[in-house]
């Protein structure tokens, strides 16, 4: 675990680089994280997903699966892979400042 300053904000990261405290997240941090993994700049489409993921996490206490995202946020699978290429579930969670998802779907 390491403490870092991202976009002027103190954040704690686990060994892999995922944020460990979702309350340290803000939009500027998200932009920086997106930059780190090559998905910047974030568009409205990205934000819609990130905001869904954040609010779902708040209610459920765990990172939503891709299936949950497609069903509840109404974003098709193809778009998820277009917006967060190759590893959409992990990349979305990373930029949203949430724990790595563990669901199989």
């Amino acid at each position, binding site marked *: 675990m390491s403490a870092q300053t991202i976009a002027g904000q103190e954040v704690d990261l686990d060994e892999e680089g995922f944020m460990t405290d979702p309350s340290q997240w803000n939009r500027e941090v998200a932009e920086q994280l997106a930059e780190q993994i090559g998905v910047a700049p974030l568009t409205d489409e990205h934000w819609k997903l990130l905001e869904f993921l954040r609010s779902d996490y708040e209610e459920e206490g765990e990172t939503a*699966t*891709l299936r949950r995202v497609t069903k509840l946020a109404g974003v098709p699978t193809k778009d998820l*892979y277009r917006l967060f290429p190759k590893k*959409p*579930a992990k*990349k979305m969670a*990373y930029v949203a400042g949430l724990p790595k998802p563990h669901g199989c*779907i």
Partner: protein
Amino acid sequence: MTQAQAMPVPSFAEESERKLCIICSKGTLDMAYPGLVLANAALMEGIEVHMFFTFWGLDMVNKKTMSHLKATPVGNTAMHMPQAISPLPGMTAMATHMMKKEIDKLDFPPIDEFLQQVSDAGAHLWACKMSADMMKLDQDEMFDEIEDIIGATDFMEMSDGAQIIFI
């Protein structure tokens, strides 16, 4: 401010060279899911995925059968039911109904939806020529996202360098 350590960034920023071929040879509900779950998981990890449907696995992509796959307790001791009653009328329907309900509870999609999902995520779907010939099935009778009907040698070429899972 200088930072004590460099910022760790998850390794998923790197490209994966991994390629996975899944051979689906069974047409029962319980044997259809493992291939789809693995394909989906691999796709979520950025791995190139090919699914090859052969023999009874063709039922998974046959438009007539794909939404009606069944799970049967007959000969399946893992369903923990006395084998003498497993062939009775209605038992397969009951086992199928129960399995579908449990799968839905876990929020896994039905077969046709799942195939669409892995296809949308970039999986390549192929049907086996020998099986299609044997079952007299044309490509237009199969799930729309099947790319082609190919022979075993084509599959060998295509799976060059891939990891292969046979189900």
